[in-house]
């Protein structure tokens, strides 16, 4: 009885304290930065690079069992946002920093360092039964802007074209828009057709193209599988159509390719530096090739 009585105010105090804690953490929002080193590394960002990041993390963990590496996706923008508020150590990104992100970093008082760790080709895929096997960049542009609506225009069957795009939080979406629709001018007025389906993941695009004869979609080289048909792309009317392969991306013969980045806060140090060096080492670059991306070295 006595114990209970004396315990009561304590419980009340604890409840009140936790209430206050909830309120204060809700009100102050941003978290303070975490140091880059330590026993656990957080890598976050591009969905395209998740598999690559995980393969690196596993191999790296064998060399350095004391360092745990956690890799999550969510999109390039998500990773870059996470590095701003200190919830990850390395942001994987399939696009370069945008102007507003550079300014944001400047305002927050730190430098984001970029390292190119690999190359990626964006493949354009259709259903395996689709007779169309190659397109020019201009044709691709017309298709994704919604100006051409039927496959018969390109020698296919008389079917409607169903456009599959990634969501706006995807680096792949932004790269495709700027590189194909806007012909490399990032501030152009061109947009995806309003009727383009926005798919939440590369998996969803792969699934829909494998099952739907009308669909055309795009995603990173790493997602290629025999369940979809990959189109050869010609830079313009006069040039030959090129299929995306490791060699054609590296030699820049395939027109839709892009660098893959690691972003770190300031100069990498400690475990972050070790992981970066590992990614660029011959062993790390062999993993790039093994996960269907293109090595830089």
């Amino acid at each position, binding site marked *: 009885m006595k114990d209970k009585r004396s315990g009561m105010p304590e419980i009340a105090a604890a409840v009140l304290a936790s*209430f206050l804690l909830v309120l204060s953490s809700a009100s102050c929002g941003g978290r303070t930065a975490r140091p880059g080193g330590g026993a656990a590394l957080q890598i976050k960002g591009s969905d395209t690079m998740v598999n690559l990041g995980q393969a690196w993390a596993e191999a790296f963990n064998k060399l350095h069992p004391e360092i745990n590496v956690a890799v999550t996706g969510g999109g390039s923008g998500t990773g870059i946002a996470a590095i701003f508020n200190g919830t990850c150590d390395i942001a994987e990104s399939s696009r370069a920093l945008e102007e507003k992100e550079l300014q944001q970093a400047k305002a927050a008082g730190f430098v984001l360092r970029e390292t190119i760790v690999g190359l990626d080709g964006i493949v354009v895929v259709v259903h395996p039964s689709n007779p169309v096997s190659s397109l020019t960049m201009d044709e691709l542009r017309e298709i994704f802007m919604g100006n051409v609506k039927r496959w018969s225009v390109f020698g296919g069957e008389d079917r409607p074209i169903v456009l599959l795009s990634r969501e706006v939080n995807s680096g792949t979406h932004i790269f495709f828009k700027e590189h194909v629709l806007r012909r490399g001018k990032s501030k152009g007025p061109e947009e995806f057709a*309003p009727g383009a389906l*926005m798919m*939440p993941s590369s998996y969803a695009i792969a699934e829909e193209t494998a099952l739907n004869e009308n669909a055309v979609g795009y995603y990173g080289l790493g997602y290629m599988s025999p369940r979809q048909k990959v189109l050869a792309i010609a830079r313009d009317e006069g040039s030959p159509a090129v299929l995306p392969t490791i060699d054609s991306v590296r030699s820049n013969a395939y027109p839709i390719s892009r660098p893959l980045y690691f972003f770190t806060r300031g100069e990498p140090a400690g475990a972050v530096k070790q992981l970066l060096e590992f990614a660029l080492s011959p062993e790390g670059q062999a993993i790039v090739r093994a996960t269907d991306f293109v090595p830089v070295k």
Partner: protein
Amino acid sequence: MKTPSRRFREFLIEKLIFLCGIASVVFVALIFIFLLREGVSVFKTVSPGSFLGGRFWYPISNPARLGILPLILGSLLVTAGAIVIAVPLGIAAAFYIAEVAPKRLRTILKSCVEVLSAIPSVVLGFLGITVLVPFLRNLFHLPTGLTAFSGSIMLAFMALPTIITISEDAIKAVPREYKDGALALGATHWQTLYRVVIHGALPGIIAAAMLGIGRVFGETMAVMMVTGNAAVIPHSLFEPVRTLTATIAAEMGEAAKGTPHYFALFAVGIVLFIISFAINLTADVLLNRNRKR
């Protein structure tokens, strides 16, 4: 000696319970204030009219085009489709469970309904994308199976447990005398059900439907996976749509803080909040009226 400390204890407990009691009210108020504070800023860049009535949603373009009319219509269309499927099915199931089914079957059915409500929405969405979407495309010869209709079917599944459980309670709450009276007057079981019991249970059933609608309207994951998310004004159930919830879920991660896009997503949240609040309020009013009778 004993009384003051005891009184203090009473006082503390009373206040603590009071705090817990008003906590949800405080949280709702805080959430709304937070949404309002973040969302209202969008009206510095677009007028409320062109935000709510705009036909184009290109949030990351420069300048951004922030019209959410296609999103509002998308959400309403998917919800309407789900209601048309789930409400009749749910009410009929509730009548069967409450009035017709033999006792053993009733227990089995009730636990099945509970299991249905326990299926995570992402699992339903996964089933939708691999099974339902290709099936609907082949069945109706659609350009794509990622349509509002697929979303409606998914959501109907998710609303069913709510509708069945609450309707069943309402049916059970109809006084036994009504039924006995009807049967004594020579009405058949079926006549009693649809002439007497349904009238007694009606406010409860409507409330069940409204709560089901509330559940459907706010659902995100399954819808995002199967509706195609194209921000166009839909003309039929068999076209892709983009919902308010899916828009927030898909874009919040990318939106840089302080941009019109970021504020617009909060404003979308306000619209969602107001609509679901209205739905829940209606359900509440109907439930209360039911209790008073």
